[in-house]
């Protein structure tokens, strides 16, 4: 029997400058099922969802999309929602200052004589909230006239689902819905999804949490490197197979691995915790302890939202919340409350967000290079142009920064060269410890290789390199030792000899 597909995608290819995010992807969703979409970071899940939900309009990708058997050429999110497809993104789209009812009927408020019919709006909201099982009992009960600002994240998510129901949703897409939820909230959410399924709503469910996926999905599609690897029934899959399907690729020789010899201990962090900046009482980083030694590259692995960036930003003194715990550099306890302190201790963080936190795009290559070490190129507060140019030229040569003019704006450079400028900025400071957060994101292969080589050279010079990366290949290709994180905790520590993609992913998947 021909299965009854509500959504069929054929040969979807989506190109970004320099990257093929999706390559000839086929994706079918059976009517009335919960269909899970899993894959590593960067596998192409979000891109696929953005195509379905109209964020990328027809024409910006190749391939065909059929909905209810008809080919669809969506131009905007509005077109998509008219057809009853609603996507709830990871970042919720609620208006905090409005009430629950006003949020549910944000786009089409019921009116009478041109004025909003508040009575009808509140009554209908009650009905919708009841439909998803949030009646006046239970600990997640929501009143329609409550301001959304006062709700918890889980409740906000429920409001979004009610909002989708108000639009008469037939295909509901949930992108990482449980990332910020507590366990009780997750249970409620999964119940709602099951309830909606029994009412005939089809659901695409994207999650890193494979246990949840195993609990509610009817079918599972695995994406990897922008390609569909497999679509299977849940009954035919177990967690281990799923992980191996998600990973399933061999390391190519992209990494200049050289043996390092581990030297003395430089950075030691003991039971370090950071409060969540938005949720009171919740810890973003919980009781983390680790060590980093001279002569090694320490890889920090984990899925998005594991708290890796937050941990090191807090250690660098640049996070909104201050961390608690003991930090020792070269055996000396240090107190770092801002990046100035960190630099004084020889600790430099190269952020994942090059354009926002790494560089000043208005300034020139030269000015960016010396920005973190102005005291080195000045005397009595007066900048010595000669010294500045010397430093810049020195690092331009050693890092092979491709620019003919060090006074050119850094925004004119390619991504790889911009990253090298950030590295030059760090090196001018002569740091003992460099944390590289996603050092090769958005950089072409050639420049990646050069940056890896540079990391090796730095290690040989006695710098401690800590590399945060979401790319498994990179982690396995470059690190000497790997720490995995999940949910703000360290979940494992592996020597490179014992680490495989399966083991790392297993340790990175948040347990439930």
């Amino acid at each position, binding site marked *: 029997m021909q299965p009854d597909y509500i959504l069929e995608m054929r040969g979807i290819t989506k190109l970004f400058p320099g990257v093929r995010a999706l390559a000839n992807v086929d994706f079918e969703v059976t009517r009335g099922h919960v269909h899970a979409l899993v894959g590593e970071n960067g596998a192409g899940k979000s891109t696929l969802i953005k195509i379905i939900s109209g964020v990328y309009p027809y024409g910006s990708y190749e391939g065909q999309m059929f909905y209810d058997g008809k080919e669809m050429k969506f131009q905007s999110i509005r077109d998509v929602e008219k057809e009853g497809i609603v996507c709830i993104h990871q970042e919720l789209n609620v208006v905090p200052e409005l009430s629950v009812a006003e949020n549910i009927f944000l786009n089409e408020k019921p009116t009478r004589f041109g004025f909003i019919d508040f009575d009808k709006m509140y009554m209908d909201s009650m009905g919708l909230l009841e439909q998803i099982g949030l009646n006046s009992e239970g600990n997640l009960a929501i009143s329609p006239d409550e301001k959304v600002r006062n709700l918890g994240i889980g409740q906000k998510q429920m409001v979004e689902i009610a909002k989708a129901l108000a639009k008469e949703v037939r295909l509901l897409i949930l992108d990482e819905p449980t990332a910020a939820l507590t366990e009780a909230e997750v249970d409620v959410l999964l119940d709602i999804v099951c309830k909606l399924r029994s009412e005939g709503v089809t659901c695409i469910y994207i999650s890193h949490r494979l246990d949840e996926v195993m609990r509610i999905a009817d079918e599972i599609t695995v994406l990897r490197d922008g390609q569909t690897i497999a679509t299977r029934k849940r009954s035919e899959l177990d967690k281990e197979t799923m992980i191996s399907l998600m990973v399933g690729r061999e390391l190519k020789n992209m990494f200049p691995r050289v043996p390092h010899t581990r030297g003395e201990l430089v950075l030691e962090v003991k039971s370090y915790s950071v409060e969540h900046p938005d949720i009171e009482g919740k810890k973003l980083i919980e009781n983390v302890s680790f060590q980093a030694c001279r002569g090694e590259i320490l890889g920090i692995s984990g899925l998005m939202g594991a708290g890796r960036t937050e941990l090191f930003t807090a250690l660098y003194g640049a996070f909104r919340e201050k961390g608690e715990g003991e930090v020792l550099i070269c055996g000396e306890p240090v107190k770092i409350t801002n990046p100035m302190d960190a630099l004084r201790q020889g600790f430099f963080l190269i952020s994942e967000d090059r354009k*926002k936190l790494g560089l*000043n795009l*208005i300034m020139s290559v030269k*000015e960016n290079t010396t*920005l973190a070490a102005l005291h080195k190129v000045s005397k009595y507060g007066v*900048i010595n142009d000669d010294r500045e140019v010397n430093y810049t030229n020195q690092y331009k040569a050693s890092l092979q920064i491709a620019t003919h003019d060090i006074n050119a704006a850094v925004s004119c450079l390619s991504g790889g060269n911009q990253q090298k400028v950030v590295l030059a900025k760090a090196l001018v400071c002569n740091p003992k410890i460099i944390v590289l957060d996603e050092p090769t994101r958005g950089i072409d292969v050639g420049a990646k290789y050069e940056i890896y080589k540079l990391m090796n050279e730095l290690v040989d010079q006695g710098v401690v390199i800590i590399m945060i990366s979401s790319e498994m290949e990179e982690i396995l290709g470059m690190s000497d030792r790997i720490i995995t994180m999940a949910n703000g905790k360290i979940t494992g520590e592996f020597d490179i000899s014992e680490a495989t993609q399966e083991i790392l992913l297993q340790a990175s998947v948040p347990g439930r």
Partner: protein
Amino acid sequence: MIQKEEKLQRYISVKKIDVRTFTMFAVLVVLWIFFTYFTSNGFSSLETSFLSTRNLSNLMRQMTTVGIMGISMVLVMVSGGIDLSAGAVVGFIGCIAAVLQVYGGMGTTETILICLILSVVIYMVQGSLIAYLDLAPFIVTLGAMLVFKGLILVVTKGTTIAPLQESLIYFGQAYISRPMSLVLGIVMSLLLLLNGVQKRASKKRNGTITGSPRNMLIQWVLMTASILIAVLIMNNYRGMPVPVLIMFVLVILLTLVAERTTLGRSIYAIGGNLDAARYSGINVKKNLVMVYSIHGFMIGVAGLILAARLNASTTTVANMSLEMDAIAAAVIGGTSMSGGIGKVAGAILGALMMGTIDNGMSLMNLDASWQYIVKGVILVAAVWFDIRTNKKRKN
């Protein structure tokens, strides 16, 4: 291919900056011709027109207050801030000077010292509120504006306080003797030459030489010519006005601070990308307080010069919205409202434009209301022009 594109982009961006300055100059020239025509019976009686050396000298003297306020407003705006209290503080400092001299019988040196210290302290407090309490500069300085408008009334009780001592008036009304003005002009031009040669030598040492010495020489000849013409015009009347000289000295000092010091570099870094500056270990708070303190010094000087020129302190100064003229001057001179971009000397061009409109329209006997309207239109047009060129540069 990529290199070629980069080169093209750079060429355009360099050229755009020139286009911008050039356009402002062109507008200024058009304004001057316009005003000269309407004040000289169709170019027939130049000696009493806008273009007479007497009037040009006056114009320069009148623009000094806004000019000095404008150049330090550039630094404040580059750091990502704004100062709405400048006009009120200028008025307040003038009142304090008058009170000290008229009621207190204090000497000029003490008066100047007290006024400058007071002004620096006022802005140090504002800067600290902005830096350490994370308050928006707009709000802090708006509050300060109201406070000092009130304090002016408290200090003067609503009356005009006059006259000031001759030695203080000197700074607002006196002229430097003609030979001395000429000597200063020549010294200035020689300093420029020295600076150019030095820069070239340093570039040569570092192997980043750009262009032949011809370009540098042409630049120097043009600068020298404009300096000498300006000096000759001033000398044709009475010599270089003292406040104008002070303004030019301050322009040079502030340019050096902006372009040659770690403080200046940090200000540009903070205004251009606050988070990146913080991640680079720049002491954001300390640098912000420094900017506002320097600004305070400049506002103090502006206040003293204005009081000296008027030979009195009046409550009306605070209602002249001088801060708006200063902000407009900075913006017309190419300072970005969003921070990180701006040239100190640009504000002089802006102040000259504002001064020209004020001066020319009063000569034409037009009502003051028209000055506001024209200045408003020019300000908005300048910003539109800026945004347009920026957009093109980004594309």
